């Protein structure tokens, strides 16, 4: 647990976005992405509007744009897929630089790129302004089943521990002269995975016993009940409401 108490995406800060209650932020992000996905792809102006909204949120939250752009790289596999679409999709064809491309395919590629990028950017903004524990509290407030929240919190707490354990096993393998070159080495790697499972499971048993000895009876006590005032909800709803307005404008001008 030497990795600190915040996840890698979180940026500490005291902006108005950071201070919003987590469940408001979760609900607002989800509603925003849903509006984006429901927008017709031909409404090009609307997507510029969404991007402007996200830029405004990032400015208020003081999240640097370089950070935001770097995190967008996670999309790359689907960008590649999007670039293939114009070559394979049905429909009328058009010539671009001497290459025959499908018009619906181009639109589809644009659709995936625009909506996917906006979705990732919204998630990154949420993750970079919300602490882990807050995120879990917010999920609980939004009526996610408590057992699921507990599983998620254990996973998050121990993900670093288990990953570090895997790293130590890798160092142990390599210090004994092991290098994974191809399929022939899979047996050794799979044995490591098996050992990792046994260690994780046994750690789970020990954690459970430690919790039982401290009075755990199946539920976690809620120490800090997060509540949101009406003003906070209004602030959070501003983002999806503005997005909805942009969306309706897009429909209207279509």
């Amino acid at each position, binding site marked *: *647990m030497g990795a600190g108490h915040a996840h890698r*995406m979180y940026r500490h800060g005291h902006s108005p976005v950071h201070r919003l209650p987590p469940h408001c932020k979760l609900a607002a992000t989800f509603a925003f*992405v849903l509006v984006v*996905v*429901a927008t017709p*792809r031909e409404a090009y102006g609307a997507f510029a509007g969404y991007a402007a909204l996200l830029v405004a949120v990032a400015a208020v939250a003081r999240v640097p744009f370089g950070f935001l752009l770097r995190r967008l790289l*996670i*999309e790359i596999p689907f960008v590649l897929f999007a670039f293939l*679409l114009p070559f*394979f*999709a049905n*429909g009328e064809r058009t010539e671009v630089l001497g290459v025959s491309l499908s018009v619906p*395919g181009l639109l*589809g*590629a644009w*659709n*995936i790129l625009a*909506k*996917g990028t906006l*979705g*990732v950017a919204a*998630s990154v903004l949420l*993750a970079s302004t919300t602490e882990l524990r807050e995120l879990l509290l917010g999920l609980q407030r939004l009526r996610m*089943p408590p*057992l*699921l929240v507990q*599983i998620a919190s*254990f*996973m*998050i*707490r121990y*993900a670093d521990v*288990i*990953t570090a354990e*895997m790293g130590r096993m890798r160092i142990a393998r390599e210090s004994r002269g092991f290098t*994974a*070159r*191809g*399929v022939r080495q899979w*047996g050794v*790697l*799979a044995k490591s*995975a*098996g*050992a*990792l*499972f*046994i260690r*994780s499971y*046994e750690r*789970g*048993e*020990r*954690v*459970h*016993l430690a*919790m039982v000895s*401290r009075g*755990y009876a*199946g539920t976690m006590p809620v120490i800090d009940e997060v509540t949101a005032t009406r003003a906070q909800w209004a602030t959070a709803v501003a983002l999806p409401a503005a997005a909805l307005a942009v969306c309706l404008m897009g429909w209207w001008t279509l």
Partner: protein
Amino acid sequence: MHVPDGFIDAPVSIGAGAVAAAGVAVSLRGARRELDERTAPLAGLVAAFIFAVQMLNFPVAAGTSGHLLGGALAAILVGPCTGVLCVSVVLLMQGLLFADGGLTALGVNVTDMAITTVVVAYVLFRLLVKVLPRGRRSVTAAAFVAAAASVPAAAAVFTVIYAVGGVTDVPLSKVAGSMIGVHVLIGLGEAAITALTVGSVLAVRPDLVHGARGLERPLELHTRPGTAKAAQDGHGRPEKAAPEAPAAPEAPEAPARHSAPAAPADAGRTTPSGVRDRPQDAKA
């Protein structure tokens, strides 16, 4: 294979979300049956394991490498319900914390990567284990087939979802052909790794492999001829004899066999955890 936002249209995303929610709700009930009150910490740690093992790279050839998806492995090791929960939680956290997979596509991702892979793998695995002769090798073979089928099955479900709610008019035969074709290959890799991993767990802690429960032979008590009488007299303290039992079947010089039905098959599971409790793990 994390589906981003905008890949599937809004109504179908919401529909898939409802399917995913129903599947997770059923699994929540089932997981309590599989793990009783230990559900939260154990499922959480297994989810952390799935999360970590997805980062373990298996080199294929010439610089390319693959990694485990983990659905089939989770189903076989911890049972179908806990498996669905673990993979779903991993997907949820990847979506929320790392923006890996869209928030509106979460339902699609959970439906095809958590529910489909786990259910297909587990059903196939149980069927094969029942049909094949008993033994460790058949468990490994069943794990191979189950994992090999689970990945193309997920690709097929994704193709169906895409056919209903895909936003681009790509000829379906091309989507299905390329998705399932590629995933048959990925499935073979997944199958090899899953089978090897299950085999290695089976060799060390067979009691931890949920899918192989009821397959291990009941423990037998072996005693040397001279000490047989003493062991039989020790009826009042069976817990002293039980820990010796697992090592005994391999001992060649044990002509006297006393079957000991009193020794529970999973005695090994409950004892070590209590003994090896280390204080630094008491973070909860």
